[in-house]
């Protein structure tokens, strides 16, 4: 289990950022795939925005942009139909064979 996975298992969403060119390397890596320098770990933003969404079995899911160059698929917790570009907050994350992300809509 790598650091991304072990941190996720503890409920922390961490990302790797290049110490030289400051780009987020996603999926996470210990080196930058642009300049090949070392990366450092930091917490990901816990606020993102909805790029697209759909619904399965009464639960919304979608593509969430957490930061520039960092998008993940996750469930979207909300009572209302989400909107594109709507802000969401990371509600829960975990790791069990795969990452799992649950976001909740921040009311406008």
């Amino acid at each position, binding site marked *: 289990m790598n650091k991304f996975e072990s941190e996720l298992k503890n409920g922390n969403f961490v990302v790797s950022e290049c110490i030289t060119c400051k780009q987020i390397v996603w999926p996470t890596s210990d080196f930058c795939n642009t300049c090949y320098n070392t990366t450092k770990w930091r917490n990901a933003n816990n606020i993102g925005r909805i790029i697209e969404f*759909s619904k399965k079995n009464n639960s919304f*899911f*979608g*593509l969430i942009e957490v930061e520039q160059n960092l*998008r993940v698929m996750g469930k979207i917790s909300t009572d209302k139909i989400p909107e594109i570009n709507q802000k969401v907050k990371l509600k829960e994350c975990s790791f069990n064979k*795969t*990452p799992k992300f649950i976001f909740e809509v921040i009311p406008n």
Partner: protein
Amino acid sequence: MKKIGIAGYGSTKFSKNEIPIEELLVESTKQIFQTTPNLSQNLIDGVIISTNDNSKYLGAIISERTGIRPKISHTIEHLCSSGTNAIISAFSYIAAGLADVILVSGGDVIGNPGQVLEWDQSRGDLNHPIYWGSMFTKAHKRKFNTTEEELAIVSAKNHKQAMDNPNSYSHEPYTISQIMNSKIITDDLRILDCSYPCSGSASVLLASEDMIKKFTDTPIWISGIGQKTTSASFTKNDLTNLSSTISASKDAYAMSNTSSAEIDVAEVHDAFSVCELMAVTDLGLTEESSSTEFIRNLFNTGDRKINPRGGLIGSGHPLGATGISQIIEITQQLQNNAERRQIPNVKKGLVHNMSAAATSSTVLILES
């Protein structure tokens, strides 16, 4: 560069049956030996296998089972576009002068592990293809006001065309209404908007210009090749186009000195209904804003220009066989040998094969 073409082909029926991968590959290979004049094992320089199956050493195993002792034998895996990738590897060996005749045999067994790309952590726990299919579909609806009926027409057309394909998985003539009322998978996908994994195998024999005349009077030439991989992670896609397809098709058209207007028939990678709508646009076969009308018109007029064998939705999708099966269909069309599926006056055809949520695409141009 030497001309390289298709000298023979064979295919099993696509089915739900759990048949060992070795048996599937041998079956489609046997058909090549049974139908290709003057072919003997000692003329084959290479055996390339296309599959996502975990079985080891299949190049050597299929060679031994079919009595071939090739110089080159190995397996190519590239998820859903393994088949066209294997063809391009064979093409490259021949173009480089390392071989003159190569057998490419592809297949997969229902339940194979290639359906899900475990590596892509950006998909979270939503790693089944239905999730990316839903994202593309919703984005298409949003941008083009695409309706459920327009999506259903893709599936209705391809199921209808698959009825005349003896090797297809489905021979059900689903109506638009049946498709629109089929099982809900997500808010944006019905079960009949999805291609099905299944068991099946398809094989082709590639040969150099010098050798091909020995095997066929109607060789079909691969005149254009384009490939592009933009990422492995689905979430890096622009949801409104197939950017790997746009890039691959540009290279294929250029290599073949062909314009999209010259394409008479195309096999496109309809993993989901929306993929066909996106592909016909991104391959330049119709204007971006008119893909739904383009497909509706084909359906209404019985024009089989797109996916005459029924596509992945109608024929089934045994990953390692799919790209090769697409090539066989275009070959048969160009040879005027596609029986009830035949489109008149076909001069140039196109194959479009994608992997892992369109993160990688292959486009081939074939001509007689």
